[in-house]
């Protein structure tokens, strides 16, 4: 196995007592001495600081960058306002999702954040299809921090009051602890919060300044996963992948009217025929929320059936575990459309027994975004 990469905060994680694990080629903190459960609650009730520097940061610049990206991404990028951010995905010819991402209009460039495990492939993909018309520049000298939770605004605006004026999905350049930071008001926990791109050299000092606030604790990947699961947010490679379309992934909301059939810039992205067809007629299967009726967590891979005995498999759990804020097990899965309505009872096969689950609305915990 090749050597694990380290983020600029690696030594800080170790000093804080983190348990480090391999993740997407990086050594990352899965939890700190607080433990997953308390880290989760901390983030929901006060604030958590996450190191997400393993994720890919990319600038796409040049005249027509937005139009060029629309050839790969089925969302409205040309219509994205200045200093606004939106969710999107790269699609393949079969309509499947190659990666999901956030993109922000920074005026002279589009700033994109992609998943760690996909970033090399994403950059290759963009370079192959977009250059030389526009330039694709990976940002490799900046860390990425996420400050999430109800106290995030108070904590960050103490460093730069401009933070308080941002709304959900706004982006801005802030001066934090003496460092110029590219900040978005977004995250991956279902809570209000910010994602902060900061030069590597300034990252540790900024993290320490944020952690110095009494309301902030360092939070690992374990709680990040339970937070996003309760928040109904997809984990790429699990809930969605190259074989699931945005419609199957219940991400139709991300595809604005202008890119749909009849829209001014309809289609023109890989797999458009399939995705546009599914937007009108529905997809054969759909990502849903699932609430196990008992206490036993049901995790990724658990097969789902329509009845307690016999019958063909109708789907599978794509992520699941214990939801500390829900106080019980929660899951997401892909199920056949006929069984995807909220309130439907399905059965998961766990240790040889079929246990009931209810198809539930996502998110499991109310989103606390500052709209």
């Amino acid at each position, binding site marked *: 196995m090749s050597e694990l990469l380290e983020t600029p905060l690696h030594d800080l994680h170790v000093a804080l007592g983190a348990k480090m694990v391999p993740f997407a080629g990086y050594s990352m903190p899965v*939890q700190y001495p607080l*433990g*997953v*459960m308390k880290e989760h609650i901390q983030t929901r009730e006060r604030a958590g600081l996450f190191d997400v520097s393993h994720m890919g940061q990319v600038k796409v610049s040049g005249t027509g960058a937005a139009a060029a990206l629309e050839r790969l991404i089925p969302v409205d990028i040309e219509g994205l306002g200045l200093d606004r951010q939106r969710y999107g995905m790269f699609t393949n010819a079969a309509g499947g999702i190659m990666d999901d991402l956030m993109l922000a209009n920074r005026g002279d460039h589009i700033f994109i954040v992609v998943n760690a495990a996909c970033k090399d492939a994403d950059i290759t993909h963009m370079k192959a299809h977009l250059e030389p018309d526009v330039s694709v520049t990976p940002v490799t000298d900046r860390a990425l921090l996420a400050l999430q939770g109800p106290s995030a605004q108070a904590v960050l605006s103490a460093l730069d009051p401009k933070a308080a004026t941002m709304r959900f999905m706004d982006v801005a350049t802030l001066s934090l602890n003496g460092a110029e930071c590219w900040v978005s008001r977004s995250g991956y926990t279902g809570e209000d919060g910010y994602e902060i791109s900061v030069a590597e050299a300034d990252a540790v000092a900024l993290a320490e300044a944020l952690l110095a606030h009494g309301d902030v604790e360092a939070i690992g990947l*374990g709680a990040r996963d*339970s937070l996003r699961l309760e928040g109904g947010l997809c984990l790429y490679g699990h809930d969605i992948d190259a074989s699931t379309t945005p419609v199957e992934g219940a991400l139709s909301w991300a595809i604005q009217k202008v890119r749909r059939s009849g829209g001014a810039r309809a289609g023109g992205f890989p797999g458009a025929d399939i995705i546009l067809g599914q937007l009108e007629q529905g997809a054969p299967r759909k990502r849903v929320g699932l609430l196990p009726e008992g*206490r*036993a*967590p049901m*995790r990724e891979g658990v097969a789902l059936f329509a009845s307690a005995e016999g019958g063909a498999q109708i789907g599978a759990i794509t992520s699941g*575990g*214990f939801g*500390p804020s829900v106080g019980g*097990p929660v899951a997401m899965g892909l199920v056949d459309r006929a069984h995807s309505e909220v309130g439907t009872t399905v059965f998961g096969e766990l*240790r040889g027994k079929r246990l009931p689950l209810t198809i539930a609305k996502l998110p499991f915990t109310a989103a606390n975004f500052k709209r």
Partner: protein
Amino acid sequence: MKYTEEHEWLRVEDDGVVVGITEHATTQLGDIVFVELPEVGTTVTKDEEIVVIESVKAASDILAPIDGEIVEVNEALAENPALANEDAIGAGWFFKIEPSDPSQMDDLMDEAGYKKFIA
């Protein structure tokens, strides 16, 4: 107390042997969120999987440490799995077993042996 390599502890009482998992095990597992206990009256064989525990991280099995019959289970633990984290060798016990061959206990580690095992 006796200990197994599976990180169980066994405490002999008048009416059976109480079994739980060690603090070392609960620390490694992280927050425990689900425990499925065997039914009282079940006859079990050494190394048979008889308890399922799930932490925030993963599911694991607990094996029967000796042959015997399950005579009591800790219902309070099933209700509140966090007891295993909070008080591993006390309120977080799992089940009580009536050994069918008490000599099997002789093969298990004592406290000094277990401490060495996890060191």
